[in-house]
């Protein structure tokens, strides 16, 4: 992963490259100039005061992106693991030259702090939606890692809660803020490829998983690892260290995610952007020959495909229209059916899917109250696509989604998989 991008490059990207990439919907990067002090420091009144919750590997990377921003002040860390709390506090205190970063085992203590504007949520996926909702209700803006939700109902409630509370929500879908992906989506969205016939996403392993109940082992001391808080809204099970840090732990509730959700929350999200963030497909078919085909209301096909990609790195997407096609991946490169699609533009190649630009987009939105690229509505739609595909995958048959109420048509088993009860006392 490309963690370091020099400041000049980053700034030049923000101010010109995306625009030249033709991403017409670029969010404003306006910060009142009074926010910038004479020496480049940011006065306290203009800083975004941040707390971090669940700061493990990914969270540390995200936090690094936040700490690069001059207008961020990170003051609190919460984690169910003591070792992580201590490690993050050390990072923050070293950066600021003080001892001020507070440590918390219960995230509600962070949400209760009135001096915190926004939270970075990088827990396991089990917690993402629930914690985001608690944060929004507490008046915090939210940068939340993906996958953001565990089922369709959570996706809808996430969207509605962010609207109701007026909070800024940015899903950790950082590819929306990378120029080559933005340009590829722009070509599709603005008709440069003609009428879209097929768009492709790479799920990197289509599988449906169920959460399990592993044999009980002796739990660690609660101060070291708070197992009850780690489980959070997931149905109860005894402590087993194999479930700790499990990348795929409980990410989908009743049936879960696998590659469709894990990667789809990125690549399906890009496909959704390519179709202008329209409502999700209405039909999802059982997988056949390594592909799962969904169909939008206008006939465009969204295809989850494991093979057949041009080697452009992980998380590739491909958009095909009657006038051309484009394929892009995590290498930062894209391949076009014709160089004329570039129309003389230069699109900066940024490989390694850095989140720096996405974090900046979030911070600007916090200040302007505009919608960031990975906003709740976009995330809601993309996640519904993934959950619906997973339900078709799990039931191994076609399901049809009614966009009026986001229920499956005459399909009780599928509808029962739209949501799942949370463990007490948590609510969504």
């Amino acid at each position: 992963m490309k963690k370091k991008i020099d400041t000049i490059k980053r700034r030049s990207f923000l101010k010109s490259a995306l625009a030249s990439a033709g991403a017409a919907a670029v969010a404003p990067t306006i910060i009142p100039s009074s926010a910038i002090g004479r020496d480049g420091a940011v006065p306290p009144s203009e800083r975004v005061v941040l707390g971090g919750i669940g700061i493990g590997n990914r969270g540390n990377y995200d936090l690094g992106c936040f700490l690069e921003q001059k207008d961020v002040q990170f003051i609190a860390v919460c984690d169910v693991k003591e070792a992580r709390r201590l490690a993050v506090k050390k990072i923050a205190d070293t950066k600021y030259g003080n001892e001020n970063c507070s440590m918390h085992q219960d995230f509600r203590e962070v949400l209760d702090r009135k001096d915190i504007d926004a939270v970075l949520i990088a827990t396991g996926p089990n917690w993402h939606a629930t914690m985001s909702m608690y944060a929004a209700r507490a008046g915090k803006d939210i940068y939340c890692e993906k996958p953001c939700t565990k089922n369709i109902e959570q996706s809808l409630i996430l969207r509605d809660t962010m609207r109701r509370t007026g909070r800024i929500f940015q899903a950790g879908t950082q590819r929306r803020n990378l120029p080559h992906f933005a340009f590829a989506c722009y070509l599709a969205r603005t008709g440069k490829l003609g009428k879209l016939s097929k768009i492709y996403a790479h799920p990197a392993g289509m599988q449906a998983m169920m959460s399990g109940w592993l044999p009980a082992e002796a739990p660690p001391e609660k101060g070291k690892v708070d197992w009850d808080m780690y489980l959070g809204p997931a149905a109860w099970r005894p402590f087993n260290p194999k479930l700790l840090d499990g990348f795929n732990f409980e990410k989908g509730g009743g049936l879960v995610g696998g590659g469709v959700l894990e990667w789809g929350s990125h690549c399906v999200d890009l496909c959704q952007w390519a179709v202008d963030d329209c409502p999700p497909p209405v039909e999802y078919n059982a997988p056949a020959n390594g592909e799962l085909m969904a169909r939008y209301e206008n006939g465009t096909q969204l295809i989850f495909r494991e093979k057949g990609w041009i080697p452009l790195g992980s998380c590739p997407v491909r958009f095909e229209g009657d006038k051309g096609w484009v394929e892009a991946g995590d290498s930062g490169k894209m391949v076009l059916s014709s160089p004329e699609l570039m129309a003389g533009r230069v699109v900066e190649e940024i490989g390694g899917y850095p989140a720096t630009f996405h974090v900046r987009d979030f911070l600007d939105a916090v200040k302007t109250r505009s919608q960031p690229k990975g906003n709740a509505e976009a995330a809601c739609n993309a996640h519904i696509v993934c959950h619906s595909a997973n339900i078709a995958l799990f039931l191994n048959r076609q399901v049809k989604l009614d966009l009026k109420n986001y229920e499956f048509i005459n399909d009780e088993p599928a509808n029962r998989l739209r949501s799942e009860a949370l463990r007490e006392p948590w609510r969504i």
Partner: protein
Amino acid sequence: MRTYFRALLLSTCLTVSTACSASLFAQVQTMEKEADLIGVLQNGAPADKAIACKRLAIYGTGESVSELAKLLPDDSLSSWTRIALEAIPGSKPDEALRNAAKSLSGNKLIGVLNSIGVRGDVAAVDLLKSKLQDSDVQVASAAAIALGQIGNEAARKSLTQSLANAPAGARSAIAEACVLCAEKAMNDGKSDIAIAVYDQVRKADVPSQRVIEATRGAILARKEQGVPLLVENLRSPDRGLFRIALATAREMTKGDVDGALSTEIGAASPDRAALVIQALADRNGPGALPAIVKAAASGPKEVRLSALNALARVGNASSVSTLVSVAGEADADLTKGALQALAELPDQNATKEILDRLSKADDKLLPVLLAVVGVRRIEATDLITKALAKKDKATREAALKALGATVPPDRMDVLLTQVLKPSFVEDVEVARSALKTAAVRMPDREACAKQIAASIETSSLETQTALLDILAAVGGTNALQAVKNAALSSSDPLKDVSSKLLGDWMTIDAAPVLLNLATSGPADKYQGRALRGYIRIARQFAMGEPERVAMIQNALMASKQPADQKLILPILEKFSSIEMLKIAIKMAGADDLKEDATKTVLAIAKKLDGKPEVAKLLAEAGIKP
């Protein structure tokens, strides 16, 4: 125990593959009748019961409910059984949850109340009302939220009546539930009720976030009559209320919101005005533009910068005059903002306006408009070319850059001439850069390369070098041939530059050219450079294994220095295969390479662990794994 293993088998196998999960699921679906699952609930181990709850969530009926309900007091299984009880349709789960609520307490009661809310059980309103008074504020809060989710008249009345006098700990949840009720009233077309509820919450002693939510609702519920309340909050000293007003302004579809925001731009502090402009631009309504253009033209700098940013998204031809004027100002930030806006103006009529202004531009504005033409990529070769004769160097440079960005294929000669016979010698570097910019965007790169290559022979050495560099950036067959010719020439400087360019060539067709250079002619430093370029292609480019093996063998035959041969070893390891292993073993036989090649042999062998041939080949070579 049998069922436990079956459930574990199910949960394990479902992770394996699509085909596996599908077929196994179908099998289990047939096998697992509801009665079997109920049996598990009665007699199974906790893990079996948990999985059975999940199955019943999908396929259970009212028949399962009584057994599921028995698990509600269970510390381990209460959450699992509610997964099923929330999902099973019909009245039986509702009855079971209501009954459980009468006897449970603490978190388990909260869980049950949450499930009642999710199911929207209207018959539970009286029960929930009673729980609103619970001494445990978490229970009271859960009851409140459940009432909000039900949202009928009875629920709403109980909530609004409780709001003022509820314990402080429960008041936030009651206010949140009131907002849920108000939303439901709005959805039912009862905006008067919604407004009353929102206003009550706005004025209640509740946390500020609840007031913010109610304020948003109160503005939206009032529709066009909501504008004064919007303005009131845009002017609020409370940052939270100001911010929710900004967000709500973006959501409003009724009333003269654009007018109100336009007025606020002038009335608000510069910091706030800058943010109001962004909200106005996001609305992109018909009344937005005049105020934004006005703000861009003059006033506090932060407001102007925000307006320029906004014009990039919502400006049109009428904005061009102001933007060109700002682009000509002395302040670099404003100039940059204006140029950016001019580059991105979405309106195509803006292009006509810019061209018209370019044709009439005075010497001061000419470089600005040339820059605009360049960034907008407007084809105006004749107008731009005229500027190449201007005395002002900055103007000429702007013209050359604009040509680089815009010149069409049939006018490439204009730029080529500026490289071959520049009007002003001091412009030649900019001209070369512009030609390169133009050349790499040409749709027919072969034709472009042919045109450029035709000029090489008659050019000076310095120009030849520049043209070869441009050709390398263009790529393709013609460019490759031209660079190859230069590499084979008798000119040492040309051989130098062309062998470097070939060494970095970005397509695989440079391989035979590099091999030819590496193996023909007198031995010199360019041969070694060509060989290393050839090896780079074998290392970096996608190709089939037979092709890569052939390239490696060619490279080995061509290489005379152990240092070059060692460059091959990482390729063998990267693309480990039996063939690569054989080559590595062969290389390990050479004294100069033995140590490094043996390491590679072992690394490949490790990657190919399990292939029977590996041990045999290692044994034959006398290399111990």
